[in-house]
């Protein structure tokens, strides 16, 4: 499924066939992945899918049961964490409570035989970088959550590691601070050109921050791609369901790039693997991709007649539930802009022509 081990020129980190077991339980099953130099990658998936386990294997904190990890063309699979090159920020931040902010940030520098003055200078630089220059002499317990997070980040960056690992760094913060820090971290990462892996279970976070997203589920990688790819072209039903919302409609394959739902045939872009006619499939379409108009429905443009079952005002858009008799009474959710609702006169009970754009339809084998 994945182009795991191929050695692209810029590949900084290669995870090859990594498996991790806890007793009889397999937390990671043959996971392979390549991370480019300077890339921001997010591990995204539901709770317990193995994101943290994979991150900790990369750090050497909980070594993999089998498989290899290659960082900067060096096989580090057997090295303890202290032999590897990374900085890490935990969800709890793990700041040393009895040391000041400055001492926390300078902690990794002290042992490197650097001169006192140099350390102080570097600490000041780092604290300025995260906007905490005036907090240097406070203790972590005297800072807000967002500030603590930034101290942890500065501490992780102090030794200029080649790889930054972040395990749900923002999940302990409230929504507003989180939004702000997302931008800040992303900007910092881009400025430093630092290869970064962040674990999150917040899809919005992943979509806004990541260059590429690794969607995980039950110890395997379901899909790797840019946020756009993951969102628009989910490889499978799990990914489609986990990220954003999607209508899943049962249908039957009738031919090349054609499926039938109820009495209506739809054309779609085709699937990677050819499907046998007669096979049952699931047709997926996102609510915001559903188009309504006042015209006459025709199979030529993938449209069919439906009735507005109900309409909810969400704020900046409307969520309509459309019932189609010709689709055996299936209900399709559609997100409609206020303009469309006004122009087409959408209201409960109103008959409409609904079309599912060919380009926007995903077809998944039924499970």
């Amino acid at each position, binding site marked *: 499924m994945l182009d795991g081990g191929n050695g692209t020129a810029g590949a900084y980190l290669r995870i090859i066939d990594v498996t991790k077991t806890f007793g009889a339980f397999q937390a990671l099953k043959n996971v392979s992945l390549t991370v480019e130099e300077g890339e921001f990658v997010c591990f995204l998936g539901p709770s317990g899918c193995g994101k943290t386990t994979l991150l900790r294997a990369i750090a050497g904190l909980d070594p993999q049961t089998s498989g290899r990890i290659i960082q900067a063309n060096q*096989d580090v699979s057997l090295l303890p964490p202290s032999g590897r090159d990374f900085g890490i920020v935990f969800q709890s931040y793990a700041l040393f*409570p009895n040391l000041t902010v400055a001492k926390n940030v300078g902690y990794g520098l002290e042992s490197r035989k650097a001169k006192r003055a140099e350390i102080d200078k570097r600490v000041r630089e780092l604290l300025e970088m995260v906007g905490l220059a005036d907090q240097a002499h406070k203790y972590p317990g005297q800072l807000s959550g967002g500030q603590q997070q930034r101290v942890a980040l500065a501490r992780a960056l102090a030794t200029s590691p080649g790889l930054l690992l972040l395990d749900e760094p923002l999940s302990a913060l409230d929504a507003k601070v989180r939004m702000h820090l997302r931008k800040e971290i992303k900007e910092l990462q881009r400025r430093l050109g630092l290869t970064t892996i962040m674990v999150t279970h917040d899809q919005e976070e992943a979509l806004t921050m990541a260059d590429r997203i690794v969607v995980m589920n039950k110890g395997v990688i379901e899909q790797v791609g840019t946020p756009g790819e993951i969102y628009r072209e989910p490889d499978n039903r799990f990914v489609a369901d986990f990220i954003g919302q999607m209508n899943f409609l049962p249908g039957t394959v009738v031919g090349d790039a054609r499926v039938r739902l109820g009495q209506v045939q739809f054309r779609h872009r085709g699937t990677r693997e050819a499907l046998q006619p007669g096979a049952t499939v699931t047709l997926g379409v996102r609510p915001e991709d559903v188009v309504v108009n006042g015209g006459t429905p025709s199979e030529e443009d993938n449209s069919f007649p439906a009735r507005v079952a109900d309409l909810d005002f969400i704020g900046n858009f409307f969520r309509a539930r459309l019932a189609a008799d010709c689709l055996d009474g299936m209900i399709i959710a559609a997100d409609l802009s206020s303009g469309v609702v006004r122009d087409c006169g959408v209201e409960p009970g109103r008959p409409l022509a609904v079309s599912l754009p060919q380009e926007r339809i995903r077809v998944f084998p039924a499970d």
Partner: protein
Amino acid sequence: MSDTGAAAAASVTVRRPKVAGEALVTWTSLAALALFLLVSMVLPLYALLSKSFEDRSGAFVGLANYAAYVTNPALFQSIGNSLFIALLSTAITTVLAFLFAYGLSRTCIPGKALFRAIAAIPILAPSLLPGIALVYLFGNQGMLKSWMMGESIYGPIGIVIGMVFFTLPHAVMILYTALSLADARLYEAAQVLGAGRLKTFLTVTLPGARYGLISTILVVFTLVITDFGVPKVIGGRFNVLATDVYKQVVGQQNFEMGAVVGMILLLPSAIAFVVDRLIQRRQVAQFSSRAVPYAPKPRRGTDLVYLLICLVISGFLIGILGVAGFASMVKYWPYNLSLTLAHYDFTAVDPDGWRAYFNSLKMAALTALIGGAVIFSGAYMVEKGRGWGWLRGIVQLMAMVPLAVPGLVLGIAYIFFFNHPANPLNGLIGTMAILVLCTIVHFYTVSHLTAITALKQIDPEFESVSASLKVPFYKTFWRVTVPVCLPTILDIALYLFVNAMTTVSAVVFLFSARTKLAAVSLLAMDDAGATAAAAARPMRIVYTSAVARALHALASRLLQRQTHAWRKR
């Protein structure tokens, strides 16, 4: 996949882990700790076990010693005596402690903090103190001898009273915790369902405290059956297992028989230990995080009754201590009761007593210092060490064993092991070193568990962060873990100090003329020795423990003030 992997491998250098300083430190310290516990605990216990199967010449004789024991009526009778004493004392202590703890946790009586402090008094004293106080009161020269109505205090009556005094604080502590963890919602439910007070007590209170009760009964029973101080001082001719061990080993030099009695003594403690572990595992699940803490409401009649009960029990505890304290300050017991501090003047009277006292002080200080350091760092390696899971598991297991071994048994195990002519360590017998060693091991488990609990509360990722910053873990241990855990380390040191000051059972076999300890020196005190000067001996221990406690409180307060900037409470 495999071929692309192979192609990529061409330019990849495989980095082998160097045997780094850190790994070496982890391994050596864990191995050293395992070796320490092996030599200071496992091997001695093994020596005890094998001794019980050997004859005098060291030849294996199977169960012959046990058979000899069972067929010797004088010895065999002690089992019955011990059980009788243990059951009776356990019943009395449990009932008293339950009432006391109930008063403290479930009623609105005044002075709860004071009552709790009073309940802790006996911990400061050696277990021989109640025996001595009883001698002063009801002994042949006793002030209140007439109260005995012709019965003798020397025997079961004295032993049981002394045991109740000595075990009460432990029982109160457990039951108070159990009764404090009540879920108010259950009481509201009972009220809504119209249950009367007795029914509520039987269906809510008792079941809620059942694990605490079982735990109390086990702890008290074990303490009583293995305690040696009380029956030694006040047991008279009433033989129990603990005094038998002493007589066999020290009196008659019959090591084989001593070993058999030791093995028998090990049994109840071992059983109690296992049962208690199982129970504690359950109790955690019992009290859910959504429970609403129970807050007692004033009820005049009930409160009054419990106030009286608490006053009487406190009176008993203070009375016993007070008698010894008073006796130590009168001119000539019981004939001239005018007060004096002369018995505390150390060179003038009782130079032996003072020598023993300073030995005790030194032993307790060394135990607190060395024991605190070894036990805390050991707990750190077990809890936070990276790798060598099996070794950490073994150390953790061994660290739990001392709780199941009565001091008396540990003491004779030490003699058998260290006295063996072939043991290269046999020069240790009679030295301060072996007393400290034995005492550290004796009180290892509780200290270890305290340390583990504190370590579990600090962020598990300190070591990970430290590794990512290339700072060796031992540096982070010193710079972060130790300062953060300092209050706990002080608690452990105090616990070790006070116990080392008061302990008798293990060290009674190991001292020499030069290293005689204060608590041990009390053993020699019988009726003839019940002089005012002699009463100053146990009181010196009590005062020292109390001062240690006060210093500990002061140090904790100062520490708190100094670190309040970063310590959130």
